């Protein structure tokens, strides 16, 4: 398939070794599959981002602006579903993870390359199926598909839910692939405790993907059965229990929150050591706190349901266990902070994103504690406080890390450098815009403004207006990033093998790497962060 050609410089790499579209769509190379995921995720991010801008524009003033309430609810559902299922969940693992996991552990590929390509096709099939509902009867349930609303509404719930099921399958296959890769394909000398922390984070994520996603799968299938066969499990009229859906749904979706954030934490660990030129502080603690968070996350789902009518005892137990998730998270934050101590810190754009992550994640974290405390959660539950909190964690956390990781690994992925000052500018726009958009939402939530509101009382106007202006800044930042990407690809200078002075394995091979990653199979003799 494809012919082997050399470039002007005579170097052969994974991009130019095979030519033509077909060589991409049938590629088993984890790096190429990672790039294919990248393009798909970017496309859906653009779609979800547009939906977000529409929502914010509608909320600029009280009363209807240009959307009807039904249209608003649909845009809101697409924003949530696209961002969760098609952007943030696959974002770091399927793009950066796919590309760098094998390079990180000195492997030539993931354990099952064919399965890896299949996951991409499955993902695309699910994502396009989900997007297709935009052209049919649309969907207005919110991304959580709560019953009995999702049973009663006349929109395309079945198609959307099946699409989510299919994307879940893709997520399971990726996770499974990563677990086996980590277990079986480490280079000689690459012990578990010599793996980069990004790999540890992906490994913990993969475990969550494999253990939690099947439960989402069966929940979604039951919802489909409910709508098509009228089974009655979630329908009170037939003796069922609508709240059971919430239990099942959050049993997956809370661990899913960590599927979204753990890889981001892994990226940040890499960025902070590299740009401080210093070994990570508390390697073991960070590695095992990832596993710890993954483990505890299976027992906290009930904190989404403090006011759903579950018993007081259940509320207390879930609140208590939720507090325990705070500890490993705090450990990570302090370890990153300690890594900076006596380092040699450079403010390249990836590091700016990593520091932006720490800033926003700190705020997301402490507000998470406020939501885990029973009495305050009763007030904040389903208000804009929650919206602000999870955007601080998911966007401020995951997306910041994704951008940081992207700028960090860009030279390795494409063999070119991007425009550094423009890249810093994107950070400023996104970081400032983010805070302007979401900080007012904490206050709105404390004032009592419920989420998923098409209209609001006049008292909430000024803060909503500020929030809308912020969304334009974020939009500008991401458009600028797209420009940086394109410009870097077209006109960027050639990247050296190791532009940042990193110590992990991927930087020992040329940029971009060759098809089989390593000319000579590496033999690992030390840990990943030996800045002595």
């Amino acid at each position, binding site marked *: *398939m494809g012919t082997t050609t050399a470039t002007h410089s005579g170097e052969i790499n994974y991009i130019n070794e095979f030519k033509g579209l077909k060589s991409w769509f049938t590629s088993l190379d984890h790096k190429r599959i990672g790039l294919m995921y990248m393009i798909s995720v970017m496309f859906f991010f653009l779609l979800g981002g547009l939906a977000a801008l529409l929502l914010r524009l509608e909320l600029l003033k009280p009363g209807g602006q240009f959307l009807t309430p039904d249209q608003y609810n649909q845009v809101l559902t697409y924003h949530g579903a696209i961002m969760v299922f098609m952007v943030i969940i696959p974002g770091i693992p399927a793009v950066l993870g796919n590309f760098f996991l094998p390079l990180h552990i000195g492997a030539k590929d993931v354990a*099952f390359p064919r399965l890896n390509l299949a996951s991409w096709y499955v993902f695309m099939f699910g994502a396009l199926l989900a997007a297709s509902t935009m052209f049919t009867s649309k969907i207005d349930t919110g991304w959580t598909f709560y019953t009995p609303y999702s049973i009663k509404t006349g929109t395309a719930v079945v198609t959307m839910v099946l699409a989510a099921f299919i994307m879940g399958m893709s997520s399971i296959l990726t996770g499974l692939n990563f677990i086996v890769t980590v277990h079986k394909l480490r280079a000689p000398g690459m012990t578990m405790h010599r793996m980069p922390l990004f790999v540890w984070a992906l490994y913990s994520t993969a475990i969550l993907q*494999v253990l939690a996603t099947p*439960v989402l799968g069966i929940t979604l299938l039951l919802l489909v059965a409910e709508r098509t066969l009228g089974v009655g499990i979630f329908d009170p009229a037939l003796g069922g229990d609508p709240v059971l859906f919430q239990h099942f749904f959050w049993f997956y979706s809370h661990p899913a929150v960590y599927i979204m954030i753990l890889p981001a934490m892994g990226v940040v660990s890499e960025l902070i050591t590299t740009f401080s030129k210093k070994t990570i502080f508390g390697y073991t603690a960070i590695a095992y706190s990832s596993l710890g968070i993954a483990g505890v996350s299976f027992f906290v789902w009930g904190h989404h349901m403090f006011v759903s009518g579950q018993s007081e005892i259940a509320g207390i137990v879930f609140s208590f266990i939720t507090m325990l998730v705070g500890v490993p998270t705090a450990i990570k934050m302090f370890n990153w902070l300690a890594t900076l101590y006596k380092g040699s810190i450079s403010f390249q754009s990836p590091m700016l994103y990593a520091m932006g992550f720490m800033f926003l994640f700190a705020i997301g974290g402490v507000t998470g504690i406020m939501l885990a405390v029973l009495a305050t959660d009763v007030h904040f539950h389903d208000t804009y406080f929650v919206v602000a909190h999870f955007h601080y964690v998911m966007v401020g956390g995951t997306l910041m890390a994704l951008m940081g990781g992207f700028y960090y690994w860009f030279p390795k992925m494409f063999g070119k450098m991007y425009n550094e000052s423009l890249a810093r500018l994107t950070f400023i726009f996104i970081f400032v815009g983010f805070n302007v958009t979401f900080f007012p939402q904490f206050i709105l939530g404390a004032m009592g403004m419920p989420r998923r509101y098409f209209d609001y009382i006049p008292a909430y106007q000024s803060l909503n207006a500020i929030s809308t202006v912020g969304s334009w800044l974020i939009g500008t930042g991401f458009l600028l990033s797209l420009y940086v990407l394109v410009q870097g690809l077209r006109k960027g200078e050639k990247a050296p093998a190791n532009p940042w002075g990193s110590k992990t394995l991927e930087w020992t091979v040329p940029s971009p790497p060759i098809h089989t990653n390593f000319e000579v199979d590496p033999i690992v003799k030390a840990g990943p962060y030996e800045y002595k």
Partner: protein
Amino acid sequence: MSTNNHASTSGHHFAHHFRDANHEFESAKQGIWLFMVTEILMFGGLFVAYTIFHNIYPEMFAEGAKQLDWRMGFFNTLVLIMSSLTMALGIYYLQVGQSKKAVRSLAITLVCGAIFMVVKYFEYTAKIHHGFLPGRFLDVHHVNPEHANLGLYFGFYFCMTGLHGIHVLLGMGLITWVMIRAMKGEFGPDYYTPVEGVGIFWHIVDLIWIFLFPLLYLVG
């Protein structure tokens, strides 16, 4: 795209990123077991829902179970246990290099799967004919149930056995695939990974049935 296959001494090619054929076999097996974990967790969700509602409406479940013929369920259980045995035999014959016998064992497994599905088909048509349909489709006038929400039981019955049935069909498809490859002589003592994988899948599908049978047919 080529994956620069290496040739092992026995003639089987293993992918370039593995050290040797055994490394590949072990990795594949681990992957298959992980996949089985997800299968079990998925059915686990159904079992949890079943347990919750069985606790709330034990008598209704007993009424529903009375409508099922335990003899058909029992027969199907025997058929599946038999098929598990022949599946295991098939792998054994491949390991010792008796390809013909292996193909025969796989064929018997396939036939067992088909018998299971035929029995299931008769059970389903009888239930549908008598109006024992899930949830709101339960033919209340015809069935005249003691418990108004009997439809919930049949909701579980059709969801659980339906999802299991889909797995049996998938398994039969996979067995056909490995059988054809075995007939072509692609497997031998040093390469039978796909058959091993399909076998594990088939055993898990059987195992799930062994849980479904008492829960649905013998409860109450």
